[in-house]
Structures are given as C-alpha cells and as structure tokens.
C-alpha cells in the first residue's frame, strides 16, 4: 500500500504538488494522468526518494519514507521496478547484461541471475535477442528490454513514467498488456501516462492530476 498524505512539493514559486492525498492499494494497478507539468513525474520521483516532499507524508506499506536514512535508500529503491519513457538502456553491453543490472546490484549469484534474466526476457518475448546489442533493436523491443530489467528482480512495485510515449498504438497496447500480466501475479503497478485513449479501454483506476492537485479519480 502506498499512501500520500497532504503531500506538497514546491520549486521556488511553483507548486508541483499541492496537498495531495492518494492511496494505492496493494496489488492494485493504477494510471496517473494529466497534462505535462501536472505533477506526474514529481509524484513518482517522491515515491522513489529521488526527491523529498516540502510537506506531508508518504508511507509505503506503513513505513514513513521520511524516516528512511540515506544509506538505506538504495535498498528501499530495490523494492521498485522502474520503466522510463526513453527506456534508458545501456548500449555498451548486451541485452542480457542490461537486464541483469538490478540482480548484480542486489547481489544474486551469476547462475541464479542468468536464469532470472532468461525468464524475464522470455516474458517480454525477447529471449532470442538475449546477446544482441540493444541499439540494434526497434523502439518497442527496447522498451520491452526496459520492462524486463524493471521486473527481473521481482519487485513489489512497478513504476512506469510515460512508458509508451514514443510508441505507436499497437506497441503501446502490447506494453500495457505486459504491465497487466505482472499486475495479475500480484505486483502493484503505477503508470504515469497521458495516453488517455489507450488507458480508457483498460479497466483500472485513473488518477488525474491538474496543477499538482487531484482532479478526479475514476474507479473501474
């Protein structure tokens, strides 16, 4: 469970988030939408402790994130799988090594790690490209490698920031279908997107932000 209690984040005169109250249930899948600058990215950054709120509290499974000391932040972040809009793959290494990165960080043995990497690549349908360089893959394939990297360590939460921003509708719905598949095995999924036509077809909660405030939350 993720709880935002009256969370604000100010950047100088600008309120990126204003007294935001929001609860994401365990095992839920939700979309966060709104215009650019509405506070979607700020919300995700606060959740990942890449930034701290100006006021208010954020709780993850009851734990106050304010009380997480800086040396424990890396461990905290390992509970999240993160998918970026521009996928952020590292082109100096193979698909396999990209996906294995979270496992290397978490300290899995090479054998265990190799097995999990293949399982994750299999799930996103890219097992055949295991030893390719990600630069040789198409945009949709690169994003699927990014998703494999996000889920390979089997995180409790999957966070995605505009994961379909650069993809055509066909590829976008494939990506969303992947997120739903992970949600079905118990992962809490939070996707920031402005692709309303795509998410309106899916039966998940849509949280709309407007100027840092909650504009409306529709339940399916």
């Amino acid at each position, binding site marked *: 469970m993720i709880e935002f209690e009256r969370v604000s984040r100010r950047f100088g005169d600008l309120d990126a988030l204003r007294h935001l109250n929001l609860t994401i249930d365990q095992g839920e899948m939700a979309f966060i939408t709104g215009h650019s600058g509405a506070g979607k990215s700020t919300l995700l950054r606060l959740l990942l402790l890449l930034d701290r709120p100006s006021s208010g509290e954020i709780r993850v499974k009851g734990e106050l994130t304010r009380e997480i000391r800086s040396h424990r932040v890396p461990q905290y972040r*390992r509970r999240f799988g993160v998918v970026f809009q521009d996928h952020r793959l590292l082109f100096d290494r193979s698909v396999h090594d990209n996906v294995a990165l979270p496992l290397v960080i978490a300290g899995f043995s090479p054998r265990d790690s190799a097995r999990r990497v293949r399982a994750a690549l299999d799930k996103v349908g890219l097992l055949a490209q295991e030893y390719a360089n990600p630069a040789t893959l198409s945009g949709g394939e690169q994003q699927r490698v990014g998703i494999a990297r996000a889920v390979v360590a089997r995180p409790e939460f999957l966070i995605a920031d505009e994961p379909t921003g650069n993809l055509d509708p066909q590829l976008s719905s494939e990506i969303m279908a992947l997120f739903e598949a992970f949600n079905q095995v118990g992962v809490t999924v939070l996707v920031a997107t402005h692709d309303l036509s795509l998410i309106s077809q899916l039966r998940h909660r849509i949280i709309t932000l407007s100027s840092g405030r909650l504009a409306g939350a529709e339940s399916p």
Partner: protein
Amino acid sequence: MNSPTGQSAERWTRAAVWRAQHRIAANDSGRKLLQRPVATGLVWLVVAISLALPSALLLTVENLRPIVPDLARSAQLSVMLDREVDRASAEAVQGQIENWSGVDAVRWVSREQALSEFGEQTGLATLLASLDRNPLPHTLRVLPKLPVSDSALNRLIGELESFPNVNRVVADTRWMARLDETLVAGERWVLALGGAMVLGAILALANTLHLAIDARREEILVVRVIGGSPAFVRRPFLYTGLYFGAGGGVLAALMLWALSLWLTGPVNALFLLYDSPGQLQGPGFEYPLALTVLGAMIGWLASWAATERYFRRLEAR
C-alpha cells in the same frame, strides 16, 4: 531482500556478493581501458613521468649517501705532539688515548715516517732530504669511533688539545658537515618537487576520470534509480583510477630501470676513477614496489575525489 524469491540470493554471503561485485567492476573497468589503448597509454605516461622524475632524483641522492660514511672514515684527527716529546713519551700518550671511550684506534707516526710520507705525497723528497733537521713532530693519528656526531668530535678534539704534550690537533671536518647538509637540503628539495609532481599527477588523473565518469552518466543515473548504492556506482571508477595509477607506477619503474642501466657504465667508471669501492645503486625492488603502490594510491585517491565531486553535483540538481 525480503521477497520470497530472495532466498536463493541469501545463500550468497555478503562477502561473496561483495567479492563478486568487485570482480565484475574490476573486469569491466580493465576491459574499458584496454579498448582505448592509446588514451590509456597516454594517461600512464603522464603518471609515470610525474613519478619517475622525483624518484630518479631521490635515487641520485641515495647514491651519494653511502659515499659520505666512506669519507667520514677518513675523518682521522692528526694529533701533533710537542716538538720536544721523545718517542717513549709519545708511545705513553698513545697508550692513554687508546683507552678513551670515543676513540677507535690510535696509530703512532714517527717524525721520520711523517717526513718521508710527506715527501712521497708531494714529490719533494729530494728537497726535504736536504733539510738539516726534520721540522715535523711525532704525530698520533686518532680514529674516532664511528658514527660520530659533530659535537662529539669537537669534544674529542678539545680533550686531545688539552692533553699534556699535545701541541695541536688538525681536523678538517667542516666540509663533511657541509656535504651532509647539502644532501639533507637536496633530499628535501627532491621531496618538495616530488610532492608537487605527485599533486600534478593527481589533478591530471582526477580530470581524466571526471571525463570517464561523465561518459557513463546515463549508467550512473539508471543505477541510482534502480537501487545501486553510492559504493556500487563508484566502484568501477575506483578501479579505473587504480589501473591508471598502478600502470603509471609500473611504467615509472621501467623508466627508472632503463635510466639506471644506461648510467651504470659511466657512473661505475667514475667511482673507479675516484678510488671508491662504490657502485651505482639501481632502483632494486623497493623502488618499483613503492612506485606501483604509490601510483595505485594516487589513482584510487584521484578517482575517489572525482566521483565525490561528481555525485555531489548530481545530487544538487
């Protein structure tokens, strides 16, 4: 990991994880350096020159040092006895002085012997033979116990001078003291120069490493978001720094070896010409070892500084 899938990871102890992560970082950094041999070689050269120059100077000073005790051994005191002292009294004086604690040996030189030695050394033997009487007194050559400090030597000279039947004591030790001080000053000069050059090497390395870090900016950002600790992010760069530094140290040692090989011939000939039993002391094993360790430390330090600065700027954004 508290997820159920973390169990197999826990079979790995923390130490094993730490070792594995180090191995991966070490291999990756090494491979990256070898992929750019020219750039890597140039960095090694910069470090090597900064280390080789001061250590060559230090080696020079160290080569001069052992010659000094040789010279000190010739620091014998010539104790001229009063002219009227005869042979028996001279031997009595010798017997007494020999028992002094600061004295190693006393050799008695008769005035006849002194005259003939003087004649031999100066080539004036025939002229001296024409003198109607020997102008030289009996002399005692006193060897102080070594090592002897300046103040102890001066005390010994004072005691000898106030001894009955002694006319005067001749000792030229000031030039030795001067040489000694010159060496101390030279050594400090070398250390100061060495310190400055090592600092230069650190700055050059830190700048090179900053570029290497910036080239992997994307990786740093990703690793940070997916839970890599600062130590994990820093590790590959510490190894890069270590390789730069240690490689430079090894190259510096090779330069030093080459230099001393090149100099051995003429320097040893010089020693021979000065009737010195000495030989050029090469860098041995201590210098290469010290250079490699120093280089590695410099590299590690430089990359620590560079990553620290980079991370701080990254956090501040």
